[in-house]
C-alpha cells in the first residue's frame, strides 16, 4: 500500500525547551496553536541550550556558534528565508534551511541547528504534514499534557549538567 506524501507546510512556534526526566536530554516543543499540532524533538543539552538562549533573549558576552552563524549570514547579506522539518526516519528528524543571496538555496541540517538559527534570524519554522503524521499520535499528546506545565519554566535548567529526576511527571512505561 502506498501512501501519498503530504508535503503541506504547517508553521510552528517554539513553545519551549524542557528536560526529559528519564534521560539526560532536552525536548524542544513546537506547536501550531490554530491546528493544535504539536511536535516534540529530542536533542542534546548543548543543542537545547542554544534554543533556550534564543527564546530567553540571552545575549552571552561572546557569540555562541549559532550567534556566529547568524552573524556570518548578516555580514554576507544572506537571508535565511525559512527552516523546514522535512523528514523523520528511525527517530531522527531532518531539516532544511532555506537561504537566499539572490538565488534560493537549501542546506541540510539537524532540526536543533535549524531552529536555533531561525530564532536568531527571525525566520519562520515549518514542518510538513507528513512528518507530523509520522510523529504524532495520542501517545505524544498524553505524554505532553503531563510534561507541559514545566515547559519554559525552569531557570538555568540547560546549564545544569546533573540530570534531575522529577517524580510524578511521567513513569517509564508510558514512553515505551
Amino acid at each position, binding site marked *: 500500500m502506498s501512501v501519498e506524501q503530504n508535503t503541506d507546510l504547517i508553521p510552528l512556534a517554539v513553545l519551549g525547551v524542557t528536560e526529559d526526566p528519564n534521560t539526560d536530554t532536552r525536548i524542544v516543543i513546537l506547536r501550531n496553536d490554530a491546528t493544535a499540532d504539536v511536535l516534540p524533538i529530542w536533542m542534546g543539552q*548543548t543543542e537545547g541550550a*542554544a534554543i533556550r538562549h534564543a527564546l530567553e533573549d540571552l545575549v552571552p*558576552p*561572546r*557569540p*555562541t*556558534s*549559532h550567534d*556566529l*552563524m547568524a*552573524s*556570518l*549570514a548578516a*555580514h*554576507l547579506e*544572506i537571508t535565511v528565508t525559512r527552516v523546514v522539518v522535512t523528514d523523520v526516519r528511525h527517530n*531522527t528528524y*531532518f531539516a532544511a*534551511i532555506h*537561504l537566499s*543571496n539572490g538565488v534560493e*538555496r537549501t*542546506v*541540510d*541540517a*539537524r532540526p536543533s*541547528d535549524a531552529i536555533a538559527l531561525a530564532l536568531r534570524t527571525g525566520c519562520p519554522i515549518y514542518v510538513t504534514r507528513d512528518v507530523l503524521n509520522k510523529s504524532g499520535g495520542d501517545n505524544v499528546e498524553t505524554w505532553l499534557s503531563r510534561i507541559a506545565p514545566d515547559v519554559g519554566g525552569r531557570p538555568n535548567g540547560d546549564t545544569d549538567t546533573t540530570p534531575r529526576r522529577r517524580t510524578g511527571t511521567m513513569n517509564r512505561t508510558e514512553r515505551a
Partner: protein
Amino acid sequence: MLTQMKVRGLLFDPYNNAYIVILRDEHCADMLPIWVGKSEAGAISFALEQVSPPRPTTHDLLKSILDNVDAKVLSAVVTDLKDNTYYAKIHLWYGDSEYSVDSRPSDAIALALRADAPIFTSEDVLRKQSSEELERWLENLKPEDFGKLET
C-alpha cells in the same frame, strides 16, 4: 605580525572540567593554550580526527552554508586576550570582497579545520599569555590526563 599556528591536540583539564586546545607554531617555539567547553572541544576533535557523524554538526552546517553560497574561509586569527578571554576573527572571501567576523577562537578553529584554512595569532597575544605558568602546570600533568576526548 601574525604567526601561523597548528592545532597540536586537545587536553582534558580535570581541575576546571574543561578542555584545552593546544596551538603551536611551526617550530614549536610558541604555544597558545585555549580553554574551551566540552561541546566546543568535540567540534574541534571531530575535525582533527576527520570523523563524519551521520548528521551534520553545527560547524559542518556552518561550512555547508558557506560552501552553498561560494564563500571561502581565508583564515582564522586569534586576535586578542583580555581578562582571560581569547578573541578571534574569521576572514572570508565572498563575492569580490573580504569580510571579517568576530568569533570565539573555538568556533574559528573548528571552522578553519573544516575549511582547510590556516590559523594565525598575533605576537601580542603570544606575549600576553603567561606561558611560564602554563608550563609548570603541564609538567604536573600525569599520563592519564591525556587521552581521547569523550564525545
